């Protein structure tokens, strides 16, 4: 991977991390944020994380995989009740990592 590409992506990460954080803070000092925009913002996180999780668990190398050997899918089905109950990032990571490693070992 070229140094240029690496630093290019780091720069993108810096800008896309900084702008969404600072713009509302800067604007709010003078004007209120439009209501429709705030409403839309509340629906972006459920959508984006759904769009991130589903391809990770349903696709294997780009193809739909609903088989018993799809460990990411099996792990997710097993830990989802616990994650929904605790709503904890830490629990999700520990339970997910643990169950994944066990399934990988046994299947």
């Amino acid at each position: 991977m070229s140094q240029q590409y690496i630093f290019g992506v780091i720069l993108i990460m810096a800008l896309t991390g900084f702008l969404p954080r600072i713009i509302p803070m800067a604007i709010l000092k003078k004007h209120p944020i439009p209501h429709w925009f705030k409403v839309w913002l509340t629906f972006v996180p459920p959508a984006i994380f759904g769009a991130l999780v589903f391809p990770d668990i349903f696709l294997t190398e780009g193809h739909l995989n609903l088989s018993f050997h799809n460990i990411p899918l099996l792990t997710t089905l097993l830990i989802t009740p616990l994650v929904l109950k605790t709503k904890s990032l830490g629990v999700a990571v520990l339970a997910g990592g643990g169950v994944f490693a066990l399934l990988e070992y046994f299947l």
Partner: protein
Amino acid sequence: MGFITRRVLQKDAPIILGYWVLGMACGMLGEKAGLNPFHMFIMSVLAFAGSSQFIGIAMMLQSASYISIALTILMVNLRYALFTSTLAPLVSKKSALYTTLFSYGTTDETFAVNLSSFQEEADHWTHEEALGLDFLSMLVWAVANAFGCYASKLVQLDLSLVSYILTAMFLGIWSNYLKNRTMVFTGLAAGVLAVLFSQVVPFKLHIVLASLLPSGLAAWLYLQHEKKSQPQKTAGPEEGSCDSMEGGTEA
């Protein structure tokens, strides 16, 4: 006037623990993509955003274009706009330098802790402590990233496990945004669309498109519903309108 007080350490302890584990995992993934500990440290200080760093690195592994990386990460980071617009009234009297640094240090976790600490009147949580908590968390995150990157050269790590840690992390963050039926439907629709679009949409843009459509539709439906149920509402549109949605009302 202290930035790092005893209670900052107490309140930051769970974040520090979580960031240490996730930061190590992120650094390890970075090493797989050919990044070194210095890259990881710089990235973590400049971006200071766990999910976007994981996604950025995963997309680098697929040699994705700058534009698709930028759009995808921007969508993922839009929730920070929600956080800083919530925090803004609490720091409105502070200098531009303070508000800039404070919004820059806002993540899912520091937002949650700072907001509840500010809201707890008896706490008298100071602005200095809030900033101290942000930057202590950032330092731990950056060191963990660099260390994970360095350490993954020493241990043979299972890449499929590290990538699943990322999925589990998304699942954990996602669970906090499924507050009512509309949000659940929005999320599931975006998930299904992302799988479908991945087969047809080029440049890894399927995630962005799949989240724009359902979130836009949900917002539109919510606004229509709001207009219908409160036609005479004129004053104070800001008041409670978003809070009531979090309470579980249905569009």
